[in-house]
């Protein structure tokens, strides 16, 4: 048992390292973060729904880019390794095929977790950065007795400082990765991928020190020195998306034991579409019908897409998140079992 755990950790760690080395992983994360942060800048129809649009866009980026990342990672970590022979080199050691499949899935989940942290932080920043109606007394400038431009124009305000910091964070992460590669010969892909995620988390942490107008809170004694002003209701919704991504990672891992990346992506996209539209096409269908059977086989992705629940101040209950986690893990177990069965008799050359 101890050896199996050691093997799982070793293979999963190597999978994470190899996957984040791929330029595609960094590009997907950077594209996801930038898309999320730029939505508040380029949205034109507001109707006081700017925060919601930023939030929904961020979660959509998380789901779509995450799905592509899960599939490409499974493709490189499982299908390509089987083709290259690296998988044979591992299975030639005292590693069971079940251990191999489960370790690969855990490794892919590790990559997705880093991706999720980056996009989740970017979504929080985008929501904060988008136009919000702000009262003058929320402007935390040095002297409360003095009126400044922001105090004189109460109304919809965009937090340009936070958005700028978030976007610059991506550039800074790339620069830092390049410097680490040049001076310390560290892997650029790993540094850049992790760096982008960390940069967004850092900005999310730092934004509590200044107001929406960019004034430092500590300069104003009558307000709290640290107030992130982030919409934490996004967290459970983002967690649900993470569960969906883990589910797709399991599906992609299982399929990649037999199929190359292209068909795996096609099947996963189909599962996403059917999973989101399950209610529509399976409405009123009997369990014995093909529609009922399909609805039973395809995981219901609607359980994990709860953006609308956050509208008008709504919240997602944590017990619901826990139930969704159980559902996602059950689906993962099912897919991984199918993957292990498919991989059991696969010839490795």
């Amino acid at each position, binding site marked *: 048992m101890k050896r199996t755990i050691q*093997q799982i950790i070793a*293979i999963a760690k190597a999978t994470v390292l190899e996957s984040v080395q791929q330029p595609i992983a960094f590009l997907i994360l950077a594209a996801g973060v930038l898309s999320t942060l730029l939505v508040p800048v380029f949205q034109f129809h507001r109707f006081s729904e700017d925060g919601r649009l930023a939030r929904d866009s961020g979660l959509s980026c998380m789901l779509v880019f995450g799905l592509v990342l899960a599939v490409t990672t499974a493709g490189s970590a499982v299908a390509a390794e089987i083709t290259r*022979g690296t998988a044979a080199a591992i299975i030639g050691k005292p590693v069971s095929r079940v251990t191999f499949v489960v370790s690969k899935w855990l490794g892919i989940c590790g990559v997705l977790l880093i991706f999720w942290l980056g996009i989740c932080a970017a979504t929080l920043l985008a929501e904060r950065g988008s136009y919000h109606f702000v009262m003058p007394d929320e402007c935390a400038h040095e002297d409360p007795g003095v009126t400044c431009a922001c105090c004189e124009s109460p109304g919809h305000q965009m937090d340009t400082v936070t958005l700028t910091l978030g976007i610059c964070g991506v550039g800074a992460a790339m620069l830092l990765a390049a410097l680490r590669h040049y001076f310390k010969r560290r892997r650029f892909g790993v540094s850049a991928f992790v760096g982008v995620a960390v940069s967004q988390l850092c900005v999310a942490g730092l934004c509590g020190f200044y107001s929406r107008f960019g004034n430092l809170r500590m300069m104003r004694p009558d307000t709290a020195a640290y107030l992130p002003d982030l919409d934490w209701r996004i967290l459970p919704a983002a967690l649900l998306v993470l569960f969906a991504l883990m589910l797709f990672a399991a599906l992609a891992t299982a399929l990649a034991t037999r199929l190359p990346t292209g068909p795996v992506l096609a099947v996963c996209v189909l599962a996403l579409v059917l999973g989101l539209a399950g209610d529509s096409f399976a409405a009123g269908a009997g369990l014995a019908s093909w529609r009922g059977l399909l609805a039973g086989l395809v995981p219901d992705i609607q359980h994990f897409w709860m953006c609308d629940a956050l509208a008008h101040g709504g919240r997602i209950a944590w017990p619901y998140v826990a139930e969704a986690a159980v559902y996602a893990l059950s689906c993962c177990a099912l897919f991984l079992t199918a993957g292990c069965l498919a991989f059991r*008799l696969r010839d*490795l050359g």
Partner: protein
Amino acid sequence: MMNPPLIETQSLCKTFRDFWRRPVVEAVKDLGLCVERGEVFGLLGPNGSGKSTTLKMLLGLLHPSSGNVRVFGKAPQDVMVKARIGYLPEVSHLHAFLTPRETLMYYAALFGMPRQGAVRRTGELLEMVGLTHAADRAVGRFSKGMARRVGLAQALVNAPDLLILDEPTSGLDPIGCREVKDLIHLLSQAGVTVLMTSHLLADVEDVCARVAIMDKGVLRAHGPIRDLLRTPDVIRFSVQGLSEGDAASVRAIIEKHAGHPVQQDYPEMSLEAYFLNVVNRDAPQKAFEVAPFLKP
């Protein structure tokens, strides 16, 4: 009571099939093979003869279409069996982004080795294969020969009882080839069973006690290499420091007894031996320190 053979195959067949399960190629046909404990066994054959396919079935990577395989008396898929095997594939399938040190640590972890022991073993193996200077460079940038050395090191990481080497000298320079052959000798003396494939016959002749020759998936010949190569009705004398006149006298005497002309020539050293002399590298001095790689 006799020990059972370490590797035993009976009527082993492997047919590769296409997507529709139609047979594409019969890679191995009705193979019966026995490898005893402690011997160095060579599996020979031209390209596509089924050598690598056979090795992969012995490792549980390929599933036989029919027949039986037993390694250490068990099915090759058994992880406890694989824990006792070191395997060097034909092409060193290494993670390109890992350094040799990380690669060996990774494989040590797969064998469940404790970290401290793995660090020590990694250092010893890197020194053995002459890669200490490149221990922290990504394997993806290595030449074929250097990657081969990493592959050889990973095959020894668990101090195996059975070493399976698929074309072990492929991609190595003559000095590297000599070192590998010396290593095989030393491991054999230490009781490790070695099964190797090669189409470089000189390599096999240098190290193997028994060989099997495969062609088009069929076992054509097998047995001790001396028995297979010996020409029973020919005797060769080698004499050093004999003058031309004395040689002619001896030749005349032998021709008289044999009743037909006798062939006389001057023995040549192998090109490998000549090369090693020229580059002033004495192979025995470079012999690997094998003790660290054996089980305590």
